[in-house]
């Protein structure tokens, strides 16, 4: 046979094999590939996927798996996972990425596969526990779910019957789901939603909210020309993986990356321009760039003219109704003229030439300018909310909002479907503990102030849920939290809902074990690109067994021990709170199909998938599946992949009926709100005086949808801030941080704490052995010049870091990766359990907790070490240093406007003293009250400043919005003069 014939025959052989496989509807050439063949198991083979068993190597033993999708629960990105369920044992053997997930596209960070560690954690909580000693003593007894449910439900029922709804609070970390719990609280009529957002992202959110009426950015990195990040999202931040992969795509397509980070973070190492400013000066730099762009005319005049609320600003502030746009431009140049590169250079320590260079890059982006601020400067500084606001000023100047390659508002790139039996009622009573009147403009609940607010208001909670949240460890001033949680007069019943032991659960009355990513149902959607998708988290063993025709009616039937999921738990609890329906809340958890019966999880999600997700029923039908079966099979669905400029869309004619256009161009209509598949939410704009609802805004004669702000435009100037006592901050401007050099003593320097280590995720990941091995400590970053000055000779030397409340002792890391004159310590790590307590061993130090009056100390007794367990790997632990819990020494720093805890600390650093050991913490909670009062004095309370007798502007975002009447302040308050 000659070569040509031979090759032809071989080609035919491969082609025939390919045709045979593809004839079965499958994909040929599976396996990882760089040549555009299938890179993931083809989805048609998920039901019976074969791989070689790694443990049998070098023998080639085939293993058969069922691949079941779910959604990661370790951060808020909601990346898709594929659980590899062994068909022989029906156990999960590993987690990989789900290629069908539009956000993560099959790519995961380390935290996703580490879900396997979490579900097999030998120390996880498997059964409901009830404390048997005094609270915090560490004695527990195992109880049944029925006992726990009846006890908790009984107390809540009584509170409701006695109209004490505000004594029930649900305190949540990252929710990892959309809408279920808020619906539940609305059904209960309880204004008890208490998020962690004010220790997380409220600062940045607030800045976005004032501009757009939506509180998060969704940059279109892949298509950007210039990307500007104020944080370390690329490698170490929130929304880590879906954003990171798109930033890299953008870079590959030629985008320039600008990173603002005082540390040389992993993100900064990828930057074309890395700026390491003095912390707190970021907003000023953006203002200097904006000022230069305005002076040089390097902005999109047409966009500014059409979409900024400049007319309102000129009329109210400058008393120039009917001013021309040219008048406004002249004024704009004037008001920003003080923000020069020289001024920014003085404050930031970055030379003016570099700032000009970066400004030039920004100005070339046009509408392809993708920007992001999440925590970082936005959550570190007094006035940090102005960072996102001034950053958005740049986008708004360039017209780079909701454009390809620009920055979208989150709500346009997110889809929360409408659930069945949507509650019609709103809580009647305002919760003063979570929404205190001193902070009327806070974006979210003032959750981290709870210990102080409870004391100030002499408040009592009857039932306090902490749900996958650990305020003792995560929040500042943790010893004050311990004091509050230990006081049964303040907290009647503390229920900790958690898959894992944590510092807060030690002070609970009940611990209820809830599932990890592969053990629970949730529905998620997050803004990650210019599109909308939903993803389904599900108990994978339930889905696997159902594929084998088993009937599963309760997730506990497949989860380890008696681990449950929250959704079924809430349904059951609600039925026990209102067994006969007399409280009017049970109806929202009743089956629609079989009235009088409990709604099942299958029915709940079936209804959503059948009715509220455009395109899903059709896509499912094309595969011969029901929508629920489709979501159980593939785990995610993309609703749209091009959203575009929603604000420029015309209002449909059927929404225009008896229209009135007011003097600001706002268009009101009597047409009813059209039905929407999306869950209601967002800002609430008042109707006009005749009851017409706002449907849009007239721009150049066209009626367009506009923005969900009071004016319908981008609010360069905020009438709300102006009216509620902050006229000087009503436009994007610069606020000097609490750690500005003017506010520091000579021997103090700023400490940055708001950054992650790449693979850890706060309180959720200490039980992941793989992640712990990679990252288990949090040394103090300090520049060599500072180390010299302080007398630290080498990396690893112990130092004492003194804060307002006390001090902590930590190992040093001398590095040029931090700006001189600034120190940094990641807020991760330093997990602990008190001596004598059972609980988790992996990644957790055992400590002695001592209290004398207001003086507290935490002294490590035992660090990391090998231990015997059902997992042989725990005998292989080689690391001993588990870091230090620095947050205990932080006083509360609530920003008077956004309500964000301003994390940066003013500290003194000195070499450790005799007797100090790594991980030592000492705090005087007596000082924390003084710090709280100092920051409280900066507020402008609704009591004195509310222009309309309300506690808060009604239009602003608010989870579980109470009735309008509940917004009204008690009558004795007097309006203040502004």
């Amino acid at each position, binding site marked *: 046979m000659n070569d040509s014939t031979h090759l032809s025959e071989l080609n035919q*052989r491969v082609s025939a094999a390919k045709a045979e496989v593809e004839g079965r509807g499958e994909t040929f050439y599976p396996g*990882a*590939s*760089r*040549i*555009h063949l299938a890179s993931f198991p083809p989805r048609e083979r998920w039901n019976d996927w074969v791989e070689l068993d790694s443990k049998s190597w070098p023998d080639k033993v085939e293993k058969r798996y069922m691949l079941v999708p779910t959604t990661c629960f370790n951060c808020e990105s909601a990346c898709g996972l594929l659980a590899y369920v062994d068909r022989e044992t029906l156990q999960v053997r590993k987690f990989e990425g789900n290629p069908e997930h539009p956000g993560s596209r099959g790519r995961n960070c380390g935290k996703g596969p580490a879900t396997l560690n979490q579900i097999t954690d030998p120390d996880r909580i498997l059964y409901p526990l009830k404390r048997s000693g005094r609270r915090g003593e560490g004695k527990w007894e195992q109880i049944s779910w029925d006992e726990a449910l009846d006890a908790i439900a009984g107390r809540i029922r009584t509170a409701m019957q006695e109209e004490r709804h505000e004594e029930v609070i649900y305190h949540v970390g990252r929710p990892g789901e959309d809408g279920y719990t808020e619906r539940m609280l609305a059904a209960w009529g309880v204004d008890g939603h208490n998020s962690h957002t004010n220790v997380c992202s409220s600062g940045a959110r607030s800045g976005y909210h004032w501009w757009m009426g939506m509180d998060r950015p969704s940059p279109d990195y892949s298509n950007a020309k210039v990307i500007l990040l104020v944080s370390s999202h690329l490698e170490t931040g929130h929304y880590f993986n879906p954003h990171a992969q798109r930033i890299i795509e953008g870079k*590959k397509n030629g985008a320039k990356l600008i990173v603002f980070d005082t540390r040389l973070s992993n993100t900064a190492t990828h930057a074309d321009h890395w700026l390491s400013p003095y912390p707190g000066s970021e907003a000023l730099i953006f203002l200097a760039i904006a000022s230069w762009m305005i002076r040089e005319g390097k902005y999109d005049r047409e966009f500014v003219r059409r979409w900024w609320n400049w007319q309102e600003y000129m009329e109210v502030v400058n008393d120039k109704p009917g001013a021309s746009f040219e008048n406004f431009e002249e004024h704009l140049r004037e008001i920003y003229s003080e923000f020069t590169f020289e001024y920014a250079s003085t404050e930031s320590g970055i030379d003016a030439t570099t700032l000009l260079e970066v400004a030039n890059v920004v100005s070339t982006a046009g509408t392809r300018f993708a920007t992001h601020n999440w925590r970082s400067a936005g959550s570190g500084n007094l006035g940090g909310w102005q960072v996102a606001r001034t950053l958005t000023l740049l986008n708004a100047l360039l017209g780079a909002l909701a454009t390809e390659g620009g920055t979208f508002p989150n709500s346009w790139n997110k889809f929360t479907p409408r659930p069945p039996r949507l509650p019609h009622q709103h809580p009647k009573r305002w919760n003063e503990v979570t929404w205190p009147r001193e902070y009327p403009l806070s974006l979210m609940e003032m959750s981290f102030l709870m210990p102080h607010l409870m004391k100030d208001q002499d408040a009592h909670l009857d039932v306090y849920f902490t749900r996958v949240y650990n305020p003792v460890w995560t929040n500042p001033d943790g010893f004050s939290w311990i004091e509050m949680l230990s006081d049964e007069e303040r907290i009647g019943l503390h229920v900790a809902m958690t898959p894992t032991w944590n510092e807060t659960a030690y002070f609970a009355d009940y611990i209820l074990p809830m599932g990890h990513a592969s053990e629970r149902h949730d529905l998620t959607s997050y803004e990650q690109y210019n599109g909308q998708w939903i993803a389904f988290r599900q108990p994978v063993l339930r889905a696997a067994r159902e594929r084998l025709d088993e009937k599963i009616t309760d997730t506990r039937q497949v989860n380890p021990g008696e681990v449950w999921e929250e959704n079924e738990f809430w349904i059951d609890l609600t039925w026990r709170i209102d067994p006969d329906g007399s409280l009017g809340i049970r109806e929202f958890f009743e089956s629609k199909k079989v009235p009088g019966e409990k709604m099942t999880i299958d029915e709940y999600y079936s209804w959503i998938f059948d009715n509220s997700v455009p395109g899903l029923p059709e896509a499912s039908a094309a595969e011969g599946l029901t929508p629920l079966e489709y979501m159980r099979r593939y785990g995610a669905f993309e609703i749209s992949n091009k959203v575009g400029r929603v604000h420029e869309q015309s209002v449909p004619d059927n929404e225009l009926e008896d229209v009135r256009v007011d003097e600001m161009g706002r268009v009101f209509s009597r047409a009813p709100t059209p039905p929407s598949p999306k869950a209601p939410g967002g800002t609430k704009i008042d109707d006009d005086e005749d009851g017409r609802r706002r449907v849009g805004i007239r721009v150049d004669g066209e009626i367009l949808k506009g923005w969900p702000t009071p004016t319908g435009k981008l609010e360069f100037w905020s009438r709300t801030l102006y009216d509620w006592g902050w006229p000087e901050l009503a436009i994007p401007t610069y606020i000097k941080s609490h750690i500005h050099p003017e506010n520091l003593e000579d021997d103090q320097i700023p400490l940055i704490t708001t950054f992650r280590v790449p693979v850890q995720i706060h309180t959720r990941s200490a039980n992941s052995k793989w992640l712990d091995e990679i990252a288990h400590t949090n040394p103090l970053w300090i520049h060599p010049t500072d180390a010299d000055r302080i007398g630290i000779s080498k990396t690893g030397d112990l130092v004492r870091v003194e804060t307002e409340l006390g001090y902590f002792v930590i190992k040093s890391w001398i590095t040029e990766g931090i700006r001189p004159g600034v120190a940094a310590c990641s807020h991760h790590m330093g997990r602990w359990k008190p001596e004598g307590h059972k609980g988790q061993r992996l990644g957790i130090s055992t400590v002695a907790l001592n209290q004398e009056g207001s003086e507290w100390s935490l002294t490590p007794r035992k660090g990391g070490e090998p231990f015997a367990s059902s997992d042989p790997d725990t005998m292989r632990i080689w690391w001993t240093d588990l870091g230090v819990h620095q947050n205990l020494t932080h006083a509360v720093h609530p920003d008077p406007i956004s309500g964000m805890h301003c994390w940066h600390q003013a500290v003194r650093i000195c070499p450790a003293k005799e007797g100090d050991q790594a991980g030592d913490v000492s705090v005087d909670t007596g000082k924390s009250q003084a710090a709280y009062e100092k920051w409280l004095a900066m507020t402008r309370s609704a009591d004195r400043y509310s222009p309309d007798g309300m506690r808060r502007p009604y239009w602003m975002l608010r989870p579980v919005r109470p009735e309008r009447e509940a917004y009204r302040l008690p009558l004795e308050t007097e309006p203040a003069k502004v």
Partner: protein
Amino acid sequence: MRNQGLDLYLTPDPLKESGQASVDLIRTLAVFAEAPASEHIHLWKTLGIEDSPSASDYADVFLFQLYPYASVHLGSEGMLGGEAQNRVAGFWGALGRNPPPEPDHLAALLGLYATLSEQIGLVGNSSGKPPRFSEAETLMIHRGRDALLQEHIAPWVPAYLERVIEIAAGPYRSWALLLDKVLRVELVRAGCPKQLPLHLRESSPLADPRTDGADAFISGLLAPVRAGIILARADLARLSSELDLGLRAGERRYALEHLLSQDSSRFLQSLATEADRQAAGHEHRRELLGITADFFLDQAQTTSKLLRQLSEGGAKITAETVS
């Protein structure tokens, strides 16, 4: 981005030859240049190669001996990335495609070649249906495929495969023999290039240690486009064994430096013989590759000549000096 080489093929009638390539076979052979996976086993069997390679076989051939990247063989640095990789990435871009993470990996290049060939096949099969591609697109696909072959595959893959056939055993030797046959068919179909590929036009000559220093000279010896030869770890091991010199464990450069410092004269002589041997391979490819093979033949012969001069002149070459 510089000229991507497409200008070489602005001939008036590129559509004359429809060029039905063995698309599935090429794609399969491309997959084999990647780390072996269990899913590949049946593919090896389909091609009649019973023993599929292990991860260790793969590591030995592709990670330790012969790096399957155009940039290593066609870049003046002889290393991954750099301008050579940029040129390949630019070529992907010129075809309107996003370059993959490693655009110059052999698997990526063969995969692209298969895809373009497949599109040409579709052009040929569109009778009775509306044309799948416009005339301009069809022209682009044809020219693109030939440019890919002449610019980014032919200058290094045949010589590379010759070395795999010499050094590897078992399934990878069978793979190289088969891929070599497939490429010969494609190269015959495409004909010899009329202009020297851009990679070669942009390359630098081998540095002379007497004027440019030992460092540049040693780097150049490890850059095939400059030296005209591919020096694998196996070659260094063989030569050192023949001369009874000690081979230091480490990167090729490190090992080469130490071999030269032990006995420069004999080792230079031995390298010259190796250059002659590899020059003979280029000579055999002259009919197939035309000026491309001429280029490498000239490089190898020049290298041989320089090495002999140095040896005979008693040059003492160490890591940093030449005397």
